């Protein structure tokens, strides 16, 4: 008997509903409606967290369902951020430059304008010429296309090379880690054309919306992030639920057996790897306008390892687990490192959480891996079992 998608996956409805209620609630309680219970900066934190949840479910699909422990998905996240950041920075600088050139006695020529923009953006790395990768920076549509195209191309090429030569397991993890390290090192160079160590900044200002308050912009991005997360969740739930999902899970459990059954394992892996890379890119494109700044440190290998840890803590192989893990750990992290947690006075020593939080976090990874291999999501299993 054929059952509908939602009947097969009741959890999807629950997640979407929760997300919708959460989004509406945050919007109503924000500064925009005048209630002002949730500050603008916290709305931004929540919006960023939703983006992290989005890349976490992508990670869950690639690792928890397909068995590829990618330690490089933050590279795609960063590329998405850089792609949108280029437009934001270019367009905003253009507005400023045109404004200041308008004060001259005679109107500015196009080349004067582009020189002045180049000076503004690249002066910090001692250059004023536009590198070729900025060729499309003046067009929002093209840069949005880049958010999707560049990660998917990189994932396609990298994945094709790696899966074709049957690099698997730990080797693949180290290879993906090398990929994100290479990207980070490349971006750190001053002549990479992306302002080296300085990264792109001022991304919180949306050009053309100079009069709109940050409170409104933050809510817009928050809602957009929520919609993206919802859409991404639906997409991935659909991918992993059908016949394709079974093949993918089969690859995770025993790749050789699936291959002998006649499936072209490499194509499935490549598809999953590329789709998740695209979603990671979109998540990054939504994240960095809320963060306001992106620099090469964001794509350093450690970020991708953290991503794997979120998914592990939330519970691999279940999409809502990834959402819970990412939200739980990143919010808890900002609570502890932001000085929100009260210090503990032991009499002889005061535990300051800004110093000890990472120790606690590290040890809890160990504890969770050892004692709760199913993560926080595993708790739901207990609930369901009790009911039945």
């Amino acid at each position, binding site marked *: 008997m054929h059952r509908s998608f939602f009947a097969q996956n009741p959890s999807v409805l629950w997640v979407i509903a929760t997300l919708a209620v959460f989004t509406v609630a945050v919007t109503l309680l924000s500064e925009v409606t005048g209630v002002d219970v949730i500050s603008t900066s916290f709305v931004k934190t929540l919006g960023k967290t939703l983006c992290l949840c989005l890349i976490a479910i992508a990670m869950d699909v690639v690792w928890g369902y397909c068995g590829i422990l990618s330690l490089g998905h933050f590279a795609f996240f960063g590329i998405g951020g850089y792609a949108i950041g280029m437009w934001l920075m270019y367009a905003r600088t253009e507005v400023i430059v045109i404004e200041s050139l308008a004060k001259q006695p005679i109107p500015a*020529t196009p080349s004067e304008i582009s020189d002045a923009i180049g000076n503004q953006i690249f002066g910090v790395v001692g250059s004023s010429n536009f590198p070729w990768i900025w060729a499309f920076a003046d067009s929002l549509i093209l840069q949005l296309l880049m958010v999707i195209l560049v990660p998917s191309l990189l994932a396609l090429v990298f994945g094709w090379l790696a899966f074709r*030569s049957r*690099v698997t397991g730990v080797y693949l993890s180290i290879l993906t880690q090398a990929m994100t390290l290479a990207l980070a090192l490349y971006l750190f160079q001053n002549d990479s054309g992306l302002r080296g160590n300085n990264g792109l900044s001022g991304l919180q200002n949306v050009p053309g919306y100079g009069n709109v308050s940050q409170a409104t912009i933050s809510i817009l991005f928050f809602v957009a992030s929520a919609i993206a997360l919802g859409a991404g969740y639906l997409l991935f739930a659909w991918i992993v639920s059908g016949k394709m999902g079974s093949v993918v899970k089969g690859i995770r459990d025993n790749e050789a057996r699936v291959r002998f059954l006649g499936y072209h394992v490499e194509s499935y892996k490549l598809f999953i790897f590329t789709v998740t890379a695209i979603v990671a890119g979109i998540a990054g494109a939504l994240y960095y306008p809320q963060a306001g700044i992106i620099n090469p440190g964001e794509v350093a290998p450690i970020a991708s390892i953290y991503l794997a*840890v979120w998914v592990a803590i939330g519970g691999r192989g279940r999409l809502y687990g990834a959402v819970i893990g990412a939200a739980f750990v990143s919010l808890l992290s900002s609570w502890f490192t932001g000085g929100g947690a009260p210090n503990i006075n032991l009499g002889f020593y005061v535990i300051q959480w800004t110093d000890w939080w*990472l120790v606690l976090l*590290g040890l809890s*990874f160990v504890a969770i891996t*050892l004692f709760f291999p199913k993560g926080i999501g595993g708790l739901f299993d207990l609930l369901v079992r009790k009911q039945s």
Partner: protein
Amino acid sequence: MFRFISLALALALAQLLTAPVGATAQSLQNILQTHQDEVLKPGRRTVSVVLDDLVASGLPQALPFLEAWRDREIVQRTSDGLFFRATGEGASFILRDLDTDVALDGAEQLDMKEARPNGGVRRAIGDALVQFRLSDPDIAKRQSAVEAIARSMEASQLALLVGSIETEADPAMKKVKIRLAGMLGALFADTIAARITAIEGLTGDLSVDVRGALNTVLTSTPQVSMALPEDANIAAVLAIGEDISAVEAYDRLVSADLAPTLILNNDIHTALVANIQGDAVGGVPVAALDTDAARQVAYDTLAADGIVLARVTPDAQAQAVAAHIFYLQYSETNPAITDVARKVLTAIETKVAVNQSIDLGLDALSLASIYFLAAIGLAITFGVMGVINMAHGEFIMMGAYTGFVVQQFVVDYTLSILIALPLAFAITFGAGVAMERLVIRHLYHRPLETLLATFGISIALQQLAKNIFGTQARPLTSPDWLDGALVFNDVVAISYIRIVIFVLALIFLFLILYVLKRTRLGLEVRAVTQNPGMAASMGINPDRINMLTFGLGSGIAGTAGVAIGLYAKVTSEMGADYIVQSFMTVVVGGVGNVWGTLAGASLIGFLQKGIEWLNPSNTLAAQTYMILFIILFIQFRPKGIVALKGRMAAD
């Protein structure tokens, strides 16, 4: 002029040394009295008179007087105008007679006038003294005099230096002097033949100052003219578009006043702004001036009215450049000298290039040994046991901090390093064993989760180190005898620390090979890694073996940490810097084989140095390309350089 005087002075003083004291009845004080004003307030010109007379007198006490004069210790007594040497202040103020060096009693500071030679005069006196010291009996003084000449390199120094060579007793110093005289001769010898001989004498000398001297001989200046001058010594004729761009060429024409200045967009802009009349410039409305073409039209109208200079058309530019010839002209007029100098310099540069590649090879070797040291522990835990230990880098860090802590208690650096090496092994061995027992043992059947658990341990240990030792880098000081470098010649040198690291890497390699292949433990380790079940049924306890193996790998990482700490800074993040490279080293080399790790480290080290050599300004780019190369390499050899064959290879 002045140099000549000081040279003559110095020569005279040099002779003085051997002349019998008291050959003349004249006293120093008498000479000074005849030049009271010049001694008290010497100027660049007036000082020469005093110096001349001092030289002519041939007095031995002139030398200490010159030193005192330069050091502003000469004073004049106002009451009788006599000069003295004054030292000390207040109660310890002492006056000494200039001729007899006897201290005067009851001198007072008050009625003294100080002689205050200015900077230029003091330098001149100093020069004279330097040259005088070339024959000083104290070798340290001769050394400093030679160094001073090498710094300034002036024509006047040549004769003096040559004169001092014959009497030089110390053979090493003699060599230095001869070499320096060769360089000075190449630049300043009187006859052309002498200069050519001097230049040829420099053949094969790799040092930077010899190359500098030859380059000075070959100094050339860019020139431009309608035709090549007949008599000039031409270095090269520049081809437009190859050696020099058309734009640069035109700029040279402008600066040589051979062509009118270019009117740039900025100039047009300024001229237009200055000439706005009403709402138009040159007949073009201001609002329409938003393209370069419109601006040029407006500017040309202004130029036609004679208000501004006319623009130079691109055609006129090209014609002007084509009508002239651009060349480099040697400052040295004699072609014979420049030819020889160029030949010698080319030969030297070829030799330098060869030596540089040897130096690069040594650099690569030491980088490879650092990678090897960082990865060798992993070669056991990851390579042999298959455990992904993300905390491996933190074991390196623990070893380095052990070295730092030991140095806080043991002041003798040699001893402290000797204590730290085994202590670091013991501590990280313990930590490794504890980690294996508590965490890794439970995860052998879930290898990817080992990665997460050990990553957790890694960030906890890192933060713990930060809490204990702070965020700033801690020094791990190497013993004095490790300072400096083994110098082969002016190009090839390798620091002793790098040699030690290389030797340590070799020791570790053979130690591990010995343990794995020649001991009971090694046999059991190999048995357990090949087939734990079978090994267990043979009476081997796999738990114990795994624990010991992991401890061994960790302990080696800790010992390597001490060595790496000597070379790099000790911070809580130092382990994280090496972890990705270490894993790549093991994977590239081939898992499960210590030789493979050696091959991987060599490949990565030499590759990185090689790419750096192609683009020396950018080490980041070198690392990026190296990683890209590794990614590609693994595509084609997924099992690494030294791949296991047969049953061992099956996962």
